[in-house]
């Protein structure tokens, strides 16, 4: 009994190293990370811009940006992906590959979330700091650049890192729009080894779990540490 278990466990784990399975899984993870990274790279500056515009004294603009944020808050990310992958290209008659769609959809989502992070950071800067800047003759942009952003960046960074982990995790939805991410690769491996190694699922998902953990855990640890530091710093 015992030797049999050990043997089957070993054979299940073998699946990970069969052929080029291992490098394919890492490749899948690479795709997820590349898409997350690009989405953050585009979404961050866009979100900072939108967040800054959300404190401008113009209710029409603020309203539009608010609706934009709520759209991404309310609609499940999966639906957003489907919308971009199946519906929009068909309606507009253009064909874009899944990865590009994913980057665009995630970037817009990131921008929406970041805009809220940035906005609440910017308005957390005390009024008298803003008035001091005004009294020195600063323009709205100078106030943003020299007073508001530097004084709230400490608050924003942990939220941005938390969002980054959420983005990485959400890439697991990409298999649904035919992007070969790490979960897709895992499923392919399980398919091909269904007969030979029925317990492959345990090992493959276990390994994927480990991969996500290795990527996301440090991110959320750093976020926690920075959050603590921001609290201490803001005591002035």
């Amino acid at each position, binding site marked *: 009994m015992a030797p049999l278990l050990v043997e089957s466990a070993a054979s299940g784990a073998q699946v990970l190293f069969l052929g080029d399975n291992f490098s394919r899984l890492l490749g899948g993870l690479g795709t997820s990370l590349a898409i997350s990274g690009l989405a953050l790279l585009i979404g961050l500056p866009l979100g900072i811009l939108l967040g800054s515009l959300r404190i401008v004294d113009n209710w029409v603009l603020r309203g539009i940006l608010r609706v934009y944020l709520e759209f991404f808050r309310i609609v499940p990310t999966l639906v957003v992906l489907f919308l971009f992958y199946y519906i929009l290209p068909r309606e507009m008659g253009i064909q874009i590959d899944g990865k590009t769609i994913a980057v665009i959809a995630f970037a817009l989502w990131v921008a929406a979330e970041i805009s809220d992070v940035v906005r609440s950071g910017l308005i957390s800067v005390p009024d008298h700091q803003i*008035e001091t800047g005004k009294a*020195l003759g600063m323009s709205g942009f100078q106030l943003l650049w020299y007073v508001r952003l530097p004084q709230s960046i400490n608050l924003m960074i942990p939220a941005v890192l938390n969002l980054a982990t959420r983005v990485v995790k959400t890439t697991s939805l990409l298999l649904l729009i035919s992007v070969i991410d790490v979960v897709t690769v895992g499923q392919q491996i399980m398919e091909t080894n269904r007969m030979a190694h029925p317990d492959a699922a345990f090992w493959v998902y276990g390994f994927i779990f480990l991969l996500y953990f290795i990527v996301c855990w440090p991110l959320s640890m750093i976020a926690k540490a920075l959050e603590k530091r921001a609290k201490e710093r803001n005591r002035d």
Partner: protein
Amino acid sequence: MTDASTPLLRVTDVCKSYGEHEVLKNVSFSVAKGEVLVLLGPSGSGKSTLIRCLNGLEDIQSGSIEFEGNTISGRKEKDWRELRTRIGMVFQSYDLFPNLTVAQNICLGPLKVQKRDRHEVEQQMNSLLDEVQLSEYRNSYPRELSGGQKQRIAIVRALAMNPDVMLFDEVTASLDPEMVREVLELMLGLARQKMTMIVVTHEMEFARRVADNVLFLENGVVVEQQTGEEFFDCPSTERAQAFLHSMSPIDSVD
């Protein structure tokens, strides 16, 4: 367009209200170049509001504010921005930028707003810091300074813009007593150098020494307006007498 007889600042019939609440009622006065005007009045009389109107942080409902003979009230924010570089303001709560060093705090306005030459600005900063004996704190952050030191740096920061007039709103009110003196002495020094100043303060001894003229406000109305000596030695209204009495040190109350 200015000759010697044009006051630097002229305020005429200024009314200011927050919604229904009238805070300033027909306030008029003028300040000549080199003059020190002290604003006195009980809490809530509108002193801070008035001083904030003078650099456009609050808008006014009627009346006019003239700077060197030009009407500045009712102007666009952009014009005010230009003007604020010539009107220095120091608040009660020092308000140094906590993310910047002392030197960066002082140079930010001159460099980024006035776009002056860095070398020249730094020279000016060094001599200003020397004057207030805070040179060694050039690279310190505000959190490393005492309240009195912060407030003196805030004054230096405003001075580094080379303003034509300085507005002070109770700049010693949140300081520990032992730090009040160093700040008041700095302001007395400025007055001796003929800086035009409008000063809100609750330090009566200081007010008496620094004031060329006094404006006494109550409930947004100018109750009394005269020279410092007259005001402190023989206030003409009962209200001002009562105010001075209420502000006098305990030991001189019978």
